[in-house]
């Protein structure tokens, strides 16, 4: 169980994370989504005690990371697969981690086998590919057999076989009753893996709910194409709909398709298209983070 309460962090006055609160529950894979620069890594680092929050708390099973006597036995983290001394062998790396938290040294071989690196345990980490380092990072997260796992972009650098492996692996960890919190920018991957979602944008919480209810948000989206775009948009907004303009079309959220048609008729808009949109995690994500996407904001400003 990870509990985040009113977490806030500013870097030189720039808010990175603002008043963020959510829970990550055991027995499920919880995806952590957000555009680049939205504060995912900052949030993960605050949960792990690597960055001090300006306000708020993040706790693991009710305690702050820095108050854990043997943190690797409480929460396993993959935050930067490069965070290894390249001169060390994979086994040596895992052994010093085990020694640091009074974990039986024999677990080093065990977790190396779990991630499929048992054949290269004696090799220098410097000679590892990115995918192998990623697996070593996951082995390091598992060294203390922790009930909570926090994985930042675990799919990076993995080949298709590796991606399939980590997907089933994360699900099996959750099935064992563990809390699995995984951040990723790959929507399609999250759609296959996650049961729950925490979505942030510009450091603020956008959604914290099940995958099903999140994608259901765009079930009610309706696409309209009309030459009188501005007239219709104004009328729909007056009726309380949320709009998302994509090219010459409008995506209308929070209004039934019948009502959209009625509004169009009332203002005399000619319709080229009026269609319900397929729900997808990607679509839901794009809609909800559009306003907060730093990249979009920069393009608009230019």
């Amino acid at each position, binding site marked *: 169980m990870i509990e985040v309460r009113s977490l806030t962090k500013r870097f030189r006055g720039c808010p990175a994370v603002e008043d963020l609160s959510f829970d990550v529950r055991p027995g499920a894979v919880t995806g952590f989504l957000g555009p680049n620069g939205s504060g995912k890594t900052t949030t993960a680092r605050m949960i792990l*005690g*690597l960055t001090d929050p300006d306000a708020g708390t993040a706790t693991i099973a009710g305690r702050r990371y820095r108050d854990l006597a043997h943190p690797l036995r409480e929460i396993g983290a993959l935050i930067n697969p*490069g*965070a*290894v001394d390249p001169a*060390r062998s994979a086994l040596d790396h895992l052994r010093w981690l085990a*020694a*640091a*938290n009074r974990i039986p040294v024999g677990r080093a071989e065990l977790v190396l086998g779990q991630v499929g690196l048992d054949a290269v345990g004696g090799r220098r980490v410097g000679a590892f590919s990115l995918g192998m380092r990623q697996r070593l990072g996951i082995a390091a997260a598992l060294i203390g057999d922790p009930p909570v796992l926090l994985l930042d972009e675990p799919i990076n650098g993995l080949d298709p076989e590796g991606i399939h492996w980590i997907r089933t692996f994360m699900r099996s960890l959750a099935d064992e009753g563990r809390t699995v919190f995984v951040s990723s920018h790959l929507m399609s991957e999250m759609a296959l893996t996650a049961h729950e979602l925490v979505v942030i944008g510009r450091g603020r919480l956008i959604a914290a709910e099940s995958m099903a209810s999140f994608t259901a948000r765009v079930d009610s989206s309706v696409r309209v194409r009309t030459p009188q775009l501005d007239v219709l948009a104004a009328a729909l907004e007056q009726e309380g709909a949320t709009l998302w303009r994509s090219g010459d079309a409008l995506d209308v959220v929070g209004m039934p398709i019948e009502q959209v048609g009625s509004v169009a008729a009332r203002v005399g808009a000619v319709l080229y298209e009026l269609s319900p949109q397929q729900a997808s995690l990607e679509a839901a994500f794009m809609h909800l983070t559009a306003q907060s996407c730093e990249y979009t904001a920069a393009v608009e400003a230019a």
Partner: protein
Amino acid sequence: MSSLSMEWHKLLPLHRTSRTVAVAIGLAVVVSAVVAAAMAGSAAHMSAVERGRFDSIGTSLQGINAAVLAVGVFGVLCITREYATGMITTTFLAQPARLRVLAAKLGTHSAVACIAAAGACAAAYAVGQALLGTAGLSVGWGAHNLARALGAGALYLVLICVWGVAIGALTRSSASAITWLASLLVVAPVIVQILPESVVHLVGRWLPSQVGMQAIAGHSDPHSFAPWTGLAVLTGYVAATLVAGAWRMVRVDP
């Protein structure tokens, strides 16, 4: 205790650790041998007074001034390598109490430095005395001040290793930490040498290298601190740097 165990497990499999001990002892022996051989070669031209003033202990231990760079760099790298590779985040995940990490690193690295220092002092002295003996300039293992010179010399090496750790924690960069260390130990005395003599006498005693020279000297120099006073001054420098390094380690996230 588990922090200490962590740092031991990091140190032991690395060739760097045994290499540091070997390089420190090797440098000490080679430099002592060269200096002692040169002195032995010119012994024929020495007057009786010069022979009486000759510092046999200090000459034999000249190699300590070279070994000091090996232990200093060893201390620096224990911190800066972790910041350079990013491994420091993994270390802080395993032990979130950063001061404990620093304390464990100091403990393990000064223990290794102790072994290197003891080996370097004993080997350098043995080789130096053997070569000086060919010219009748040796004083042997029973000489007055020898125990102090060996002990203070070894302590000097350990202090410089700790200083390396502290400078590493403060700068987080191998290049700039080693530059600082080399400037303080090697460049500073060269600069001070070109100043007027009155200034040299005033400033020279505060130099870490001068403290080191006095630690291993058989005779005292009126313009320098006494061996233990000098080491106390050096301890002050080390402590101040360590406080600053610890502050940065705790306050500024990696």
